[in-house]
């Protein structure tokens, strides 16, 4: 068994050309030798990370688990192009987060944003929204079918216990799910939290071993 180490990640960063799509976490055991871990990962996949198709802003069809999440460090959040309350705040924040993590996004860490209104948000709409926002490579936007996107949303726990609120897209969960799939390390933070703090939280997935003190 191997730990994710900074050295491994840096060597991966050196090897991977900029913009290389969805590289795996190097050093993490893709083919796990430990059957209990393999089972536990599979269980998480089955319950929370559905392997359903999505279409990227570039028009590529991908499978959520196999192509986007498996063996990777990722962030996942939801938006829709005509959302005028929460989305602009969260998405503008994530643009700044991406800038802070510029040396990692697209290499160690992949950012994904998925529309909640795929009927309106076609590939073209999603691509234009992404361009207008100023997202850099390493941050991919997706559309798909309502049914599949709902499976992902429910899978990663972005739901309300009140069904009526849960169905109301304007109240959709503004958190960002982040995780290191091979290490089964998952958490979430508010998309509206301060930029630096969101970036620091994402970095725990790359460097879970870091120490921290806050002087006062």
């Amino acid at each position, binding site marked *: 068994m191997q730990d994710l180490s900074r050295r491994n990640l840096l060597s991966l960063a050196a090897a991977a050309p900029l913009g290389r799509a969805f590289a795996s976490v190097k050093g993490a055991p893709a083919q796990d030798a430990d059957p209990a871990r393999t089972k536990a990962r599979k269980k998480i996949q089955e319950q929370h990370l559905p392997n359903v198709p999505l279409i990227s802003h570039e028009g590529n069809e991908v499978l959520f688990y196999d192509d986007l999440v498996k063996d990777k460090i990722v962030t996942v959040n939801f938006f829709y192009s005509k959302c005028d309350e929460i989305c602009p705040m969260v998405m503008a924040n994530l643009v700044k987060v991406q800038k802070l993590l510029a040396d990692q996004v697209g290499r160690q860490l992949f950012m994904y944003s998925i529309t909640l209104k795929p009927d309106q948000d076609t590939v073209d709409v999603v691509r234009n929204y992404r361009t207008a926002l100023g997202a850099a490579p390493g941050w991919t936007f997706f559309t798909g079918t309502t049914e599949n996107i709902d499976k992902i949303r429910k899978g990663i726990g972005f739901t*309300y216990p009140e069904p009526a609120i849960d169905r109301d897209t304007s109240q959709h969960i503004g958190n960002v799910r982040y995780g290191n799939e091979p290490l089964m390390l998952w958490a979430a933070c508010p998309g509206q*939290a301060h930029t630096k703090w969101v970036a620091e939280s994402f970095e725990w997935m790359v460097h879970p071993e870091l120490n921290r003190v806050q*002087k006062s």
Partner: protein
Amino acid sequence: MAYYNVFGEKVSRKRYKEMVNAAKNRRELITAGLTSRRDLMKLGLLTAGGMLVAKSGLSARAYGQQQAIPPSGSNQVCLPGNQPASPATRAFVDPLPIMPVTAQTPLHSLSPAPTICPNTEAGEVRAACHQAPELNPSMFPFPPPRIYQMRQRAVTLRQSPDLPPQTVWGFNDGTHGTITPGPTYQANYGTPQLTRNINALPPLTQNGGFGMPSVTTHLHNAHNPSESDGNPCDFYGIGSFCDQYYPNVLAGFSSTNPPNGDINESLSTLWYHDHRVDFTSQNTYKGLVGFYCLFNEFDTGNEETGFHLPSFPQFDIPLVFADKVYDSESHLLAFDLFTLDGIIGDKFLVNGKIQPFLAVEPRRYRFRLLDSGPSRFYSYFLTELNNLNQVNPFWVIANDGNLLPNPVEVTTVRIGPAERVDIIIDFSKFAGKTIYLENRLLQINGQGPVPTPPFTGQHFGPQVECSNAGGTVLSDILPAGAGNLLLQFQVSSKAVRDNSVDPATNPSFYSLPSTNVAPRIIRTFKFDRLNGQWSVNGQFMDCNEFRFTASQNSSEQWILTNLTGDWTHPIHIHLEEHQILSRNGLPPSLAVERSRKDVVEVHPNERVQLFFRFRDWVGKYPIHCHNVIHEDHAMMALWHIVANGGDNINVP
């Protein structure tokens, strides 16, 4: 145009619309002759959020699948969100583990030797030099007279004879092996101590699917200097350590009541737990919790002296309650990594075992009950299964570990995550019988029990969405014997000595410190859910930001307001206890709430006014929801105390 909520506060147009719609839904149903909330819930027309269930979703359960409530004692309850039930386990097969008293360690066994300022080069992670020995080296010598070394480690143990061994995390004091809950500290006022907490957890690849091997150990309720508090923002990875200096000193010692502090601020039942920001739920669920009992010349641990409370540890027994879920296939401990609401388990552990038994003598015992979460509230009752109509009163002597002015006789007591209550049970009236500590509070998701409006602070009405096979909606207080039997007491019939005080004689413990002090400032904290993001005053946890500054040795009033609809939030504030001045304008109606506390349940649409002093120490502390899922999703704020300072931010 401005919009206002029930408190007359400005809200957004969107939020106002939601409120109006919810009210309208209720009114329409009332017009239709469905006059009570219970009726609506029976028909499945109203959800816990006050929203109408859509026609297509008409059912007594609007969320997930769930099992019927099985017969009493089977310990199976509704699980939220389509989770399969845990495997069946037999009850009352294992004896209750009683955690050993934490063993001290010789000073020379600490390598490197402890230092007043953080030994960063040697791998220590601590935010500041120890305040106590710098403030008063004769009162707080360095090193202090008692030294402990605790390693956080993984351990494989059985939680039920019917489940495979579980790999969990616990504490190792060097003498008792690695155990969870950890060993119980037996601490004394006037005897400072130092604990070296060492992170000796295995790497992430061996975490079994959840748990972050990055820790910070908080001593919950302690009047501790900030650098030894176990702040969520000061965490460390495998191989690092933190020396935590516990002065065991009464609040006021260096301010209002020199030189020894205010005896009426005595603490007794504290607990320690991991507090790693954003990962506290995983790490505490995995086992990083333990008790810290603090004694003094009155609460002595000896029933022959002081207040004559039952003797520790034989008749004074700390109980850690935890509800958990086990995977239906692997039968291994499972944790929902993806919930934002809360985790509700269908297996009930006491001191690390599922439904254990305890052989007791027919006399008085003191039990210190701790709800270690993650998200469940408990209403404890004493139940005799073949005499279900019998009401069995007992005594509450402490709230959140703080002895009340006098014992309060109750038939039930309720606590939420992180709250404690010390109770006295007199088993002499049950000699030769078997009785149970039963949780009769029905809760089916992280929202907490749902009150019936108008909310009185005492009465909780029907809980929604958890029905039996016949579709009947049950009250949130289940009938006797139909709840969760947590712990079985096998009472021997042989009469024994009991020199502990009879609570019926109304002994006095401590007086409540006066709250008749003009606050330097009144601050308001609004707890809300904004697009699913748990928030305090519309903002989110950020370890890099202090939201406000209190002045050392000043008094403040804090108003905690719950704007999250039908959610109850157990709010915890570090450093000093508070007293509840009012709930929605009225003094607390429950006698057990006329006490000092460190966690306050803020119920739906409630505004709770608290009295605080921030004495003796400086540094940073958090305020946060102790439903650890909410806490881990940013329902927390960092603040600090400085000497001769303090800002005037009313809404931090």
